[in-house]
């Protein structure tokens, strides 16, 4: 655990969210609860894994309505112009890729070389993502207007 102490994962994740949402979506994001509950309603989770000297994954959880607003903002359209769920999954996957990319860069610069996976998305309701055996886990909530989301990172050093 001490090996990763130099990196403030929580702050890195929050800064990445603020930057990605501002640049790609022109959406202002504020930090929400420090240890938020899971979103239990129907939601979409974008996940990117990284492996190398450190292993782990970054996930972005957003409710369906928020995901639609995000997709519309990213593609410069109205929410009712979204043609399919595929567009929403692609956008959420791409956002998690950007979050993962930012964190991966910080880890690599700190000497923890790793490779990033292609993003994946999961959707549904009443499911919980549980990861075990990680050295560090951070979960942060954030808000954009009335919409709430959360981001998580699980990490451990490679063998």
């Amino acid at each position, binding site marked *: 655990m001490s090996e990763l102490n130099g990196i403030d994962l929580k702050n890195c994740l929050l800064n990445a969210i603020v930057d990605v949402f501002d640049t790609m979506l022109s959406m202002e994001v504020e930090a929400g609860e420090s240890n938020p509950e899971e979103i239990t309603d129907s939601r979409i989770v974008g996940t990117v894994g990284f492996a190398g000297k450190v292993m782990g994954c970054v996930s972005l959880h957003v409710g369906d309505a928020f995901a639609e607003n995000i997709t519309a903002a990213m593609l410069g359209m109205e929410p009712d112009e979204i043609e399919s769920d595929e567009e929403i999954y692609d*956008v959420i996957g791409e956002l998690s890729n950007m979050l993962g*990319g930012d964190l991966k860069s910080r880890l690599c610069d700190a000497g923890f070389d790793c490779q990033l996976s292609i993003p994946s998305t999961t959707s549904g309701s009443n499911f919980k993502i549980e990861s075990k055996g990680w050295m560090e886990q951070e979960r942060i909530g954030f808000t954009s207007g009335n919409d709430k989301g959360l981001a998580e990172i699980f990490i451990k050093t490679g063998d």
Partner: protein
Amino acid sequence: MTVKILTVDDSKTIRMIVKKAFKAFDCKLSEAENGVEGLAAAAKEKPDLIVLDITMPVMNGIEMLEKLKGEPDLQDIPVIMLTAESGKDSVMQIVKMGVKDYMVKPFKGEQLIERAEKVVQLEAKKAEEVAADASKQYFSLEDDVQVMTMPVKINRQVNTQVEGFLKTKLQDIVKSGISKLILNLSKAEETNMSLIKVIVQVLQACKKASLNIQIVGTEALSEGLKGFAETSEIKIAFSLDEAKSAF
């Protein structure tokens, strides 16, 4: 001269953002979803610029770039790499491979244009061409009727856009032999001044162009329009079929 640009990215979202960024310029965009498709497209299209993602399935951007640099016909095509990774090692690896420039995601369309302009000469499209492009999202042809569908939110920006293309578009419609137009406002969720302006603009332009017009909307919209002097007398059809049969 039209600049040919190839975007290679597995994300449709990023391909759309790139396409949108170059929309205002005289460019021909082509797309590929991975390195294999990208190489084939590059060989076929001989683009003036390639915007290349790194992390992709099948063949990633680094492999594609290596193969591209190994092809005498393709090695001189300038490449701007797109990467979600800003780490020193990633950047050094990209730079060493001879790319013209790189962009770290997240990025804005304007930033991509700035980088592209250093590599290729982009010419802004003429105002009429931009207006014609903008009008495409609103118009569809149903049998012998042109349907102009307005979005959920009608604001000043939409108003200005419509103003920019309306006259020319209606002239083109008339020239093509069509004499009926339906203004579809069924998605509009708010009756505001921008909406009223659009209705007035379209009615006046149709009158000038001698086009028959019907308006489609919801009952709430119909009620809302009665509160404005400019639209209080307008009859609203509640479906496209009702509007078509009213001609």
